[in-house]
């Protein structure tokens, strides 16, 4: 294979066009990929930068603990929602976090089914991001009940002493099913993907406690062909199950709004518009995490410019769908002829929260469209800043949808204003701390890039008809390295 006329840069099953940038920089072997990624986990000395980042995240996490303690002690009155804005930061941040999670599942499941091999070096930490984002999202519905230990009976169907059951006709209950299924399936997908890499860490860990710990988690994985056979089937099936699941989750989240008859919520465009927005926000967060990660750990060989550019393109495409959603909202308000709908959209643009809407349009319509320019989307610092702008934009979008729709009710006598309290903000910043703390722990103790999947995209992994034994001299020699 190394002396053949082939020019494909990647391994088996590839369809990469000739001349495309490689998925892995040339010259890497099975061994070098393994060493490079596992050494991040197995190195004895923790880098100082890691400690600094972890310390800041951990401090922010303390804010969450403070916010929760105060909430449980004093009740949900410490938060801002009140008549007429009965939903505030709690659902806003829930939707924001759960949306961010969607990119991880998209990368790991949908891009797998579409045979997009560039997903390989980003899927692992994107899945971790999903899991942690869902954990942050779950915080809000659990704690907005005020006393979560008393709320379980109307959230989950279990035989309770009152003999009551959840109201299955309510989108809120659909949401409970969707989000808990999503959390469970994301965790399974992530763990299954980790098993072969945990075996690698078990075989390479130097100290006994780590060997034992990784050994227990790897469950005796030995890379048997029979095991791989079932494993790959399971992985594909999980991807096939996760794909409709991820679409259903944000659809159900959008039903929380769309099923209600509130002007600004009651729209059929909501499900696709929310799903696109979720992927958009999620890719922004993957970029926000990937850019510092590759820089700090020197992973530019694996997370290449091609990966960043592809993610920027997905972000741009989904951003355009989101922009289309804004247009449809405005058009339908006018076209419906409904005076409440019309008032809602005018109030959104020119009412007391006009600056939120203006900032939203700047972030999600103007800033994102600069990524059409190749020089801008291949400029790493610019891309990083844009990804942050998108995250802010998606937060503003939910703020606009939730607050501006509710604060001008049908009856002018019940109009009001809404503002997040200090404890609302503490809880939000606290979940950022939780998310970052979990991310820091993850990159320290587990391989942030899937090692075994990286091996499969190396040229040496190609076992075609023409790849006779002994034809390739050094193990995993790369055609790209040959003159």
């Amino acid at each position, binding site marked *: 294979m190394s002396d053949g006329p082939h020019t494909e840069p990647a391994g088996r099953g590839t369809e990469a066009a000739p001349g495309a940038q490689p998925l892995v920089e040339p010259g890497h072997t099975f061994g070098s990929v393994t060493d490079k990624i596992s050494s991040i986990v197995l190195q004895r000395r923790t880098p100082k930068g890691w400690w600094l980042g972890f310390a800041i995240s951990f401090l922010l996490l303390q804010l969450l603990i403070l916010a929760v303690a105060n909430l449980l002690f004093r009740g949900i009155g410490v938060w801002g929602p009140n008549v007429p804005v009965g939903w505030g930061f709690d659902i806003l941040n829930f939707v924001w976090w759960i949306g961010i999670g969607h990119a991880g599942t998209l990368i790991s499941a949908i891009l797998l089914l579409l045979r997009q091999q560039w997903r390989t070096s980003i899927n692992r930490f994107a899945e971790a991001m999903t899991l942690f984002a869902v954990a942050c999202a779950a915080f809000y519905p659990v704690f907005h009940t005020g006393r979560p230990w008393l709320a379980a009976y109307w959230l989950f169907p279990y035989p309770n002493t009152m003999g009551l*059951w959840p109201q299955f006709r309510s989108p809120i209950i659909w949401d409970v099913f969707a989000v808990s299924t999503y959390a469970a399936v994301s965790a399974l997908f992530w763990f299954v993907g980790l098993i072969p890499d945990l075996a690698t860490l078990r075989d390479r860990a130097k100290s006994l406690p780590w060997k034992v710990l990784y050994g227990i988690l790897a469950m005796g994985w030995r890379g048997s062909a029979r095991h791989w056979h079932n494993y790959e089937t399971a992985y594909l*099936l999980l991807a096939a199950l996760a794909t409709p699941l991820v679409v259903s989750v944000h659809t159900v989240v959008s039903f929380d709004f769309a099923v209600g008859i509130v002007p600004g919520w009651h729209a059929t465009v909501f499900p696709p518009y929310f799903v696109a927005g979720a992927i958009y926000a999620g890719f922004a967060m993957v970029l926000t995490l990937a850019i510092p990660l590759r820089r700090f750990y020197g992973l530019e060989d694996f997370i290449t410019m091609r990966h960043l550019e592809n993610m920027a393109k997905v972000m741009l495409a989904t951003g355009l769908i989101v922009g289309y959603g804004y247009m449809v909202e405005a058009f339908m308000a006018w076209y419906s002829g409904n005076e409440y709908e019309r008032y809602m959209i005018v109030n959104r643009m020119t009412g007391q929260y006009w600056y939120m809407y203006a900032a939203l349009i700047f972030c999600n319509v103007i800033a994102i469209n600069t990524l059409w320019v190749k020089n801008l989307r291949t400029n790493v610092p610019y891309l990083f800043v844009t990804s942050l702008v998108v995250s802010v934009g998606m937060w503003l979008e939910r703020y606009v949808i939730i607050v501006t729709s509710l604060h001008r009710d049908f009856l002018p006598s019940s109009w009001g204003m809404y503002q997040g309290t200090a404890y609302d903000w503490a809880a939000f910043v606290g979940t950022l701390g939780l998310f970052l703390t979990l991310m820091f722990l993850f990159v320290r103790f587990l391989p942030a890039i899937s090692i075994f999947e990286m091996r499969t995209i190396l040229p040496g992994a190609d076992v075609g008809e023409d790849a006779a034994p002994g034809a390739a001299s050094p193990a995993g020699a790369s055609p790209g390295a040959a003159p």
Partner: protein
Amino acid sequence: MSTASEPALYGLMAEFKEPAALVEAARQAREAGYHRLDGYSPFPIEELAEALGLHHSRLPLLVLGGGIAGAVGGYGLQYWASVIEYPLNVGGRPYHSWPAFIPPTFETTILVAALTAVLGMLALNGLPEPYHPVFNVPSFALASKDHFFLCIEAADPRFDPEETRRFLEGLEGVASVSEVEP
């Protein structure tokens, strides 16, 4: 501690540095009449499964069963709770509001199917498995890095310590042949 009926060896293990060499070796071993053998690699190799003559996994069927169980269970739970156990008139809507029961049914379908996929994969693979003889070969630690192994088990009727060793050593691209302690 070995008796006549219990061989002192688990098998013989050949080590390769190339995936293609392992696939070719597996093919030749099958042609030579060996059936109790397994290949070990640091990443999945489709051609190796073919060379070893592995049949389709039973997993998809299990997952289908799991999905159906999840769907029936999820819908049944809602029907039972809303129609039989505690019928509650909510705004005049029918007790059996089937369109509203679809989203939770969909989610339970996915949940049980995904759980079946993972637990079924582990069960079919016999994992977790705290002990396996192949780990007694010192170089086997490289099976999770960049080396490839073929193990012919002593339980194979054609297995003969001398002859099988000669066969493995004669394969192209073989780096070493080791005995696997049981």
